[in-house]
């Protein structure tokens, strides 16, 4: 895996992951492309995410984007979900699981892509104030 491509894949996965834009997909795509098995790629992605997310969290915390008061609730509920998810992955046909997942994220993607613009309203509200000044 020597060369520019793994560096680019690592960088892109780290950057996208830090922005909450699905760095895992980038890394899993790359790992599948170099011939690593799906379970191994999934495990590598999760392991890769631990230090990269930690770096991102520290920067995001400094930038005031992390609300620490609700994080323990998410972590506790999420830990239960992660264990259940691992058990499901071990028992259900992976291709069926993949298709369900694909439909789900496509639906969410359409919702995100075509959402109503929110910042325009804020700018419109600000305009009269700046015009007065």
């Amino acid at each position: 895996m020597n060369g520019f491509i793994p560096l680019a894949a690592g960088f892109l996965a780290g950057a996208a992951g830090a922005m909450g834009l699905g760095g895992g997909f980038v890394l899993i795509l790359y790992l599948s492309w170099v011939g690593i098995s799906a379970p191994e790629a999934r495990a590598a992605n999760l392991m890769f995410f631990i230090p990269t997310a930690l770096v991102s969290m520290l920067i995001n915390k400094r930038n005031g984007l992390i609300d620490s008061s609700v994080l323990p609730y998410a972590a506790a509920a999420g830990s239960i979900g992660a264990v259940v998810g691992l058990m499901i992955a071990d028992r259900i046909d992976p291709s069926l699981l993949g298709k369900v997942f694909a439909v789900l994220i496509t639906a969410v993607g359409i919702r995100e892509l075509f959402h109503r613009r929110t910042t325009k309203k804020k700018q419109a509200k600000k305009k009269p104030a700046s015009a007065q000044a």
Partner: protein
Amino acid sequence: MNEISKPQAAAAGLAGGLLNGAFGSGGGSAAVPILEWGGNDAKKCHAMSVAIMFFLSIVSTVGNIFLGYFPLDTVKELLPAGILGASVGAAALKKVDNDLLRRIFGVFLIWSGGRILTQ
């Protein structure tokens, strides 16, 4: 600006954990929309999603080790570039426009979903 409630954070964690555990990725695709529910700031939701996924990745990684998957050599090779990328990505998150962030996220999800469906 609205605040992320405790039940909302718990729901985002549960949904994200299920996907991360089952697929090894994609937890954020469930967590972010749940966190955004009620008009919360998109940047904050993405940052919170990363923080939630950090904890869940630890749990899932421990689970994977029990299942016999510990690809440390693969990760070690990708990690230096990944850390650099994470620093750049987190710095960019502070500056990016909320609507643009959501639309990029949307395009990415549609592309990923389409790719899985056509494989």
